[in-house]
Each structure stands twice: as C-alpha cells, then as structure tokens.
C-alpha cells in the first residue's frame, strides 16, 4: 500500500522532470528559429537590423512565456508532491 503511494508520487515527480526538459527543448527550438531568421534578415539588409532586433526580442519574450508556463506547472507538481 505504502509502496503504491510512493510509486505514485515518484512517477509524478519523474513526469515533472521530463516535462521541464521538454519545455526547455521547446524554448530552444522556438527562440533558436526566431534568432536564425533574425540573423538572416539582418545579413540581407543591415539597415533594418534595429527593427529586426526589436521584433526579435519581443517575440522571444512571447515564446518564453509559454515555456515558463510549462516550467511553473512542473515545478508545482514536484514541489507539492515532494
């Protein structure tokens, strides 16, 4: 009985850990793509690099919010189950 409860909690914490890792992968892919396109745009037209940089920062913040949302859920699972 106790083993079943402990196993339950340990599965939840493992799920939280895997979720946090996947969230980090999502952030890397999303912001990496934005950065890549921004670099390419700036290389093609250096005069527009100020505007491109501004737009890149804002979109990176939007993507980061989605990732931090997943991170907070994983943190809540691991902190409230431990």
């Amino acid at each position: 009985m106790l083993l079943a409860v402990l196993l339950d909690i340990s599965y939840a914490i493992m799920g939280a850990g895997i979720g946090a890792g996947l969230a980090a992968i999502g952030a890397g892919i999303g912001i990496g793509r934005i950065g890549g396109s921004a670099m390419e745009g700036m290389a093609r037209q250096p005069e527009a690099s100020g505007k491109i940089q501004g737009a890149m920062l804002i979109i990176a913040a939007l993507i980061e919010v989605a990732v931090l949302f997943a991170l907070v859920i994983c943190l809540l699972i691991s902190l409230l189950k431990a």
Partner: protein
Amino acid sequence: MSIFLSRAKYFSAFFIVLLTLFSGAASAFQKGHGEEAEEAEKSDINISELIMHHVLDDHIWHLWDHGGTIYLPIIIYSSEKGLDVFSSHHFYDEHHNVVEYDGYKLDHGHITLSATGKSVLDLSITKNVAMLLINAVLLVLVFSSVAKGYKKNNGKAPKGLQSFLEPVIVFVRDEIVKPNIGHHYEKYMPYMLTLFFFILFGNLIGLLPGAGNLTGNIAVTLTLALLTFIITNAKGNKSYWSHIFWTPGVPLPLRIFILPVEIVGIFTKPFALTIRLFVAITAGHIVLLSLICLAFIFHSLSVGLVSSLIVLFINLIELLVAGIQAYVFTLFSSLYIGMATAEHEHH
C-alpha cells in the same frame, strides 16, 4: 559632447547602484562556510516552502528576522461576528508560530472561524495590497510631477523627470496606440498609458529585495485583463459583433460552426493576457529564488558565489522582461480595442 559625457556619468552611477542593489540581495543571504557545516545538521531549509512563501501573498510583510516584520492590519467580515479590524501581530506568538485569536484561525493565509471552520470575507491589507497602494502612490507622484513640469516649461525644452519619461510616453503613443487604434486614439491614451506604467512600475518594484510579487498575482493581472475586456466589448461597433455572430464572406452552414469558436475567442483574449503577465513575472521570481537557494542546498560558499553571479545576470534579464511584458500587454490591449472599433469597408 561634454553634455553627453556628463549624462553618461549619471547613467553609469545609476546602473552601478542598481547592480549592487540586486547582487546584494543575492549575496546578503550567503553565510560563511564554517557556519553552514554546523547548521546543516540542525535545520534543513524547506526550499519549496521558502519559494512559495516569497511568491505568494501573505498577511504579514517579512523583511528580515528578529524585528523586521511589518504586521499588516487584518480586516475581516463575517455574518456571525461582524466587522473585525486588528493587527496580524495577534496571530503570531513570540516564537513566530501561528496561534488562534478571538475565534479566528489563520491557516496558510486563509482565515476561518475556529468554531465552525467557515471562511470569512477577507478584506485585509495584505502584502500585495500594500504593494499595490505603494505602486499607485508612486505613479501619482511621478506623473503629477511630470504634468507640473509641462506646465512650468510651457514651450521650453523638458527638464528632469519630464525629459526622462517623455520618450517613453511618446513611444507608447506612436508605436503602440496610434498604429493599432487609428482614429480617435486620444480617447484611449489615458487608459493605455496607465496600463503601461502600472505594469512597468509594478514589475520593477517587484524585483527589489523584500518586495511583494505584485504583477505576478493572478488576481491583479486578471483585473487588468478584465478592464481591457470591458473596454473592448463596450466599444465594439456593429461590424465587430457581426463578425463574431454572423461572419460575413463565409458559406452559410459554416457560420453555425464558427459561432461557438468566435464566442470562445472573446474570452480567450483576456485569459491569454492574464496568464502571460502572471507566468512571466512569477516564473522569473521562482527561477531567481531557486538559484539563490542552490547555495543552501549544497552548503558551499563557492556554489554561492557562482550562483550570485548567475542571479545577477538573470536579474538583468528580468529587468528586460519587466519592460517587454508591459509593452506586450499594452500592445495586445490596443490591438484588441483597435480590432473592435475598426471601421470596416463592406465586402
């Protein structure tokens, strides 16, 4: 050239003070190596409780141990006992344990009647309410001084705080409100400016050491999103509502399917605004606190030094996030209001 250099001197002094303030917050909590080895046996800090305590709301404002706690007033109303106002000091004894008082019980920030366990209407001045009042007073002080500056320097070049804030105000008007709302944008400027500076100042003062998590409170962000929701739907014109309920330019049977999607879409917009600001600020605070607590998990001074440096850089990123989240909230609000009030040509 010399004017530019003297301005730069003020900016660098300002930044040095800011950086030491933030890095001091991290290193102030690092203890010596020897002390920590002893305390490792005695007390094991509950990291999750510490982090949650710093991020959530509380009835007392705990600045430092042994005398640095501000006991905020508790204002509660229940139908059995009526209105009760007292200091939260009564809920804590000398050893800072929670005790019952006057028939009320405080359990993890939730006040109930100890006789029946029923919850009471809690209108207390909590840490977040106090932060909100401080933010409001700060906004009033700063902007009344800016307005007075405009009256005094009528026609002349702006000076002081006025010259610092004028580019930001013009930025909000020209980059956020005017392109998205178009004509009649002046009507919405007061709300947009208030929204932008409330969120910006709220984010920034929430980063100071000892401050409460104001814009990371989902009730605060929900209220801001609700204001945008009310303005959007109150000012929505005929073409806005007809696009939702009877989408033009779409074959007739498809309109029945689009109707529930569009109705849900009315509510997802403020929901996204709420969650975006709440998560960005709260997650930032949780990351900062977790990195500082790393030093306490490993009980090592070198880990503390490295984590202090990392926390310094992440604090700079949090400053950027504070500005960006204020910008994004205001941008989306003006976008929604612009979409609702846009005058549409007929297809």
